[in-house]
């Protein structure tokens, strides 16, 4: 069966060990978490965990069922299956030189990157977008000399029906 990336969204209790329970459930059964985002929801007692993992459909179903058994987990949904919006955020630090300065500025304009810091010798850019846009942006900037990046996992939210 076809393996693909699935976005699993969980509504959980906002408690110290809940993330360990979730990651342990996956890791202990040999499933890898490829990206992970956790934050508190509008209700401060609950958190949302959005993680991505790769597998065929039966595997993802098994993962969902195991997560659903955890006492601190209220809801498990596979947002890959439904109509959802997906975003990632990446911060990129680049060396700025006489040679690459104009190219960087040009790319910033084309891709509508946000400039957080622009100093004579380096800059920090912020990009948000779909995972696909991220890859594209990074591919463009790479030849200009990326020093370091910090990238979030995918977050996703279901559209209204």
């Amino acid at each position: 069966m076809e393996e693909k990336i699935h976005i699993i969204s969980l509504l959980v209790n906002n408690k110290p060990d809940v993330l360990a329970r979730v990651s342990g459930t996956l890791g202990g059964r040999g499933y890898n978490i490829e990206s992970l985002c956790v934050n508190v929801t509008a209700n401060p007692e609950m958190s949302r965990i959005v993680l991505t993992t790769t597998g065929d459909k039966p595997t993802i179903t098994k993962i969902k069922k195991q997560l659903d058994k955890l006492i601190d987990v209220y809801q498990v949904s596979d947002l890959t299956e439904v109509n959802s919006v997906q975003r990632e955020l990446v911060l990129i630090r680049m060396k700025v030189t006489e040679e690459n300065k104009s190219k960087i500025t040009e790319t910033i304009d084309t891709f509508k990157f946000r400039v957080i810091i622009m100093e004579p010798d380096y800059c920090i850019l912020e990009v948000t977008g779909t995972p696909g846009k991220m890859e594209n942006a990074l591919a463009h900037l790479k030849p200009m000399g990326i020093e370091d990046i910090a990238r979030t996992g995918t977050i996703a939210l279901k559209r209204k029906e």
Partner: protein
Amino acid sequence: MKLTGSQIFVKTLREEKVDAIFGYPGGAVLDIYDEFHKSKVKHVLSRHEQGAVHAADGYARASGKVGVCVVTSGPGATNTVTGIATAYMDSIPIVIFTGQVPTPFIGTDAFQEADITGITRPCTKHNFLVRHVSDLARTIKEAFYIARSGRPGPVLVDLPKDVMQAATDYRPLPEVSSTAPTYGAALKRIPAVFDLISKAKNPIILSGGGIILGKASNELREFVQNVKIPITSTLVGLGAFPGTDPLWLGMLGMHGTYYANMAISNCDLMIAIGVRFDDRITSKIDTFAPDAKIIHIDIDPASIDKNVTADISIVSDCKPALQLINKLIRDNQFAIPQYDDWLKQIAQWKTDEPLTYCYSDKVIKSQFVIEKLYELSRGEAIITTEVGQNQMWAAQFYKFDHPNTFLSSGGLGTMGYGFPAAIGAQVAFPDKLVVDVAGDGSIQMNIQELATAIQYNLPVKIVLLNNGYLGMVRQWQELFYEKRYSQTDMSFSPDFVKLAEAYGALGLRATKPEEVESVLKQGLFTPKTVIMDFHVSREEGVYPMVKPGTPIAEMDLGREMIN
């Protein structure tokens, strides 16, 4: 009313109708034990924390109630891990209370500190660290609720010392309310079950531990008698259906009967109830019941389609599902076909390859000991086992007619389980005959519990099948490692008769077949703790045997041993 954490603890356990606690004191639980002393709680002092958890597990399996265990922090807590994992694998409801260092010390590598909630996260159904005394009563209630509801399992509650010393206003709490599942939607699929039953020619029922945990043994019996479909069971499910019934096929799987494994391999419909399709029953999974439609009834949705894909799955407690099925049969809603040809075929398999062994008048055969044990106890004993050959022979040759009478570590396969579990079962049923079928390897893993049995006058009987080997490991070395018996020779053992006497128990020995009956008679009917040391045939193997990774229809019947 102001109460301390320890007082609330004892009060809440009373509310949960806990009538026995298995445990071991220590620094972090001094306040709890002081309260035990003041309030005269019934507490059984084990000699090792692992013994306490297995005893709570045995108490739970025998009584169907939640078992309770209390131990101290650090090493006390870590010593419970094997017992907790044992209960987790077989879905046994126990609540383990561990002491913890005072909250300000947590995370400082304090004396006898262990992150026991972290350690036991993968082998508990859930666990808690109580940080405030105001959360204590509610947490304990939740722990009991979680342990016994749904698919049961062990729940650990970690109790820091200062929390147990602190005082708070105590108000009795209402019972834990939860949106209890009604299984209504799942049960709508039951008519489809009858559709498959009516079309089947070679149907079989496979029942498991879920029947016993769900207290659905009577419902299962009614169902089987109504449809007259032959039935086999997993190890943990033994006793749910009478072992003396003509429709009973014995256990299936790696050491299952020839006819149970043949029936599974040739069936066209399998009705699996309360099972999770462990590899020890399926062996090579793609040849397991290859031509069968599969109906899977289980309380845990994660068990459905995990190892075996079901044609009809019903996520439900076994009891309401079987009750509805039985009601529909009683109301004559469905015609049940006759399976004469299939039953004839099965009878033929039973005649061709009965479960047997080669009796000897020179050396004691373990199977013979179990047969005699069955006879003399009239099949009415609670049998616990250790793990290995002793466990398989007990499962094969003792016929269990009642649920909750066969207590054995199925999933985890924990050596050292049987004796402390027998202590727990004997505490639950002081007047019943409780027998631990043991091997000379396993019994030494929790032999210290002899002191516990003697201290509380628990007349547990140990039937020791002493072959001077780690018998099952030796058997694998014989079959798959060209008889290189690496580290399995256990012939250096204590004199078990003297050992029994040293603890104040009765020790008996049989070295010849003609002594077996008299030793059993004396041992079983002496009202105290007894070790019966049977010196059995050293290199006897457990048969039939399915080689790991091969189809269960391809059994080694051990003909060389039998003839």
